[in-house]
């Protein structure tokens, strides 16, 4: 009897260390919960963002018969064919959809937009960040105004204006319109960057007798290269993806359609197989994705610089 009791009292302290060291607190419960939840949420986001694009590529590699027979088949390894791509790229005269011409148009519009936007906004951004001139503080309000008005509101008079000039169907008119949409955001992105370049560098060159323009060209622009690259890409994306103005201006002449316009207009027709248009979607999306992921860090930093200040 006595032995047993002593054994018990002896074992009791030995048991205690194996019991949970930390009590089951709210902190511990939540930490565990969020640890699990975090991966569930990450998985959810991955599926939500990647699946539509997987589906796009998948369908672009099927024939329409395969797709309609078994629409729920999501396996990548069942009989891929590149037929959709040749059908969508072939010129309309040869029974295709003529996306090659749309690609050319989109390319011309996007590249011209980038060049002219830079030509206008680089000096503008420099002036806003460096030089004191009457009204340099009010420039912001002006830019905000650009985004306050819906593009459809601007579209009405521009539509009328270019109709009068008989320029409405031309790619040039589209470029001019795009510039007005891209210049404000370009200035915003580059201004932040110019402000991080130390003034002393420029002042040193000025003391050496260089003029303002020479200083900009030789000192400021080379330093601002990353920001200029990022801005160019962003502008390229805007011009490449744009739909409303392309629709209003170019709808009448198929030879002038851009890729987004061509895809949107053709997707309304019943005769063109969905899988062929999916190939068109891939063709529209891939150039942007390549450009973006080549330069991702540059771009996201350019866009959000200044957000850290809160």
């Amino acid at each position: 009897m006595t032995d047993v009791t002593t054994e018990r009292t002896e074992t009791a302290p030995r048991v205690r260390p194996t019991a949970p060291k930390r009590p089951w607190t709210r902190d511990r419960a939540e930490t565990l919960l969020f640890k699990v939840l975090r991966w569930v949420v990450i998985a959810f986001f991955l599926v939500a963002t990647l699946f539509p694009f997987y589906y796009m590529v998948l369908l672009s590699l099927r024939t329409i018969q395969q797709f309609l027979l078994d629409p729920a088949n999501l396996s990548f390894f069942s009989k891929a064919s590149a037929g959709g791509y040749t059908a969508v790229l072939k010129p309309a005269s040869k029974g295709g959809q003529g996306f090659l011409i749309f690609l050319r148009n989109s390319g011309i519009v996007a590249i011209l937009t980038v060049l002219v936007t830079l030509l206008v906004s680089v000096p503008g951004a420099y002036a806003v960040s460096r030089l004191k001139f009457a009204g340099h503080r009010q420039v912001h309000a002006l830019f905000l105004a650009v985004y306050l008005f819906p593009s459809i509101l601007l579209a009405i008079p521009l539509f009328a204006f270019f109709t009068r000039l008989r320029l409405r169907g031309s790619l040039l008119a589209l470029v001019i319109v795009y510039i007005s949409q891209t210049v404000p955001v370009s200035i915003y992105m580059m201004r932040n960057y110019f402000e991080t370049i130390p003034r002393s560098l420029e002042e040193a060159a000025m003391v050496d007798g260089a003029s303002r323009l020479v200083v900009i060209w030789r000192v400021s622009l080379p330093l601002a290269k990353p920001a200029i690259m990022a801005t160019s890409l962003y502008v390229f994306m805007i011009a490449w993806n744009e739909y409303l103005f392309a629709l209003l201006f170019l709808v009448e002449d198929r030879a002038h359609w851009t890729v987004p316009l061509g895809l949107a207009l053709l997707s309304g027709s019943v005769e063109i197989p969905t899988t062929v248009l999916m190939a068109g979607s891939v063709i529209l999306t891939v150039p942007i994705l390549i450009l973006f992921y080549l330069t991702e860090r540059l771009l996201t930093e350019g866009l959000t610089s200044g957000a850290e200040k809160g």
Partner: protein
Amino acid sequence: MAGVVTEGVVTEGRRSRRGPLARREARAGLALISPTLIVVLVMVIIPVLWTLMLAFQNVRLINLRQTGLFGNYTLENFTNVLTSPDFVSSLTSTLIYTVGGTIGSIALGLVAALVVRHPFRGRAVVRGAMLLPYISPVVAATFVWEVMLSPQFGITNQIGTKLLGWKRAVPFLSEQTGHLSLFGAHVNVPTAMLTVIAFEAWRYFPFSFLFILARIQAIPGELEEAAKVDGAAPSQRFRHIILPQLSGVIAVLAVLRFIWTFNKFDDVYLLTGGGAGTQVASVRVYELLTSQADVGGAAAQAMVLAAVLMVCLLGYFALLGRRNKEGSA
């Protein structure tokens, strides 16, 4: 006397020494900003004023060439717009769409930023994937959604009817009101509107995600460490440490997303064409302009749209200002 004179000379000398430089700087500044100003003036300000003029004129697409500065001004367009039975419903859908899309995209962006804020293997890949919806062209994204949601062969309805036991295929983009039975309760849901809002949230959360992530990573780690030592649970740390630090960036995002969603045209137009109860205001302007060829009416509708947006923003800033004042008091 002498003192006054020298004082005058000194100030004059200083002014003349500083003057030319400042003036030259001002001149250079104006010269460099002038291309921008010209672009904004010609492509934005004049068009806005022109729209205002068109809104007060009886202009149709056919007589557009003849209308000039001194046309017959009338209030007819505005009375037509404001008394039209579609006006209220269009405005309501615009507001529902805007508020839903804004909240949805910011909430998703916040959650996304919270789950990738700490480094882990494959974080760069996850982060890159999350930007996909935002950078992909809107026409391609809407087309894939359309095919995915198609009632006949879309993958969503395939999975729903074959695996999840849905009784019928759901026409996500063409059904105005759907009936949903949850636990025996029957609810009417605006199917197409919810789909369009979901698209908006899906497509634009990366934008909020980028900004919120940048801000979160600038929060000094010691703050959270200190709270951890004091025994604050993760949810408490989020509520009392992280969220207050993010309020600034979230307020800015709310304004930006509200403006952009309110003015949004292509997403809705490409998904539903404005049908099934999703005729948001900008789609209505487009319809007036193209299918009804009523330029004056479209201009008036667009102006009303801009005015409503302005009122919403003023209200928001007033609210924000009052809250800030209360916070500091």
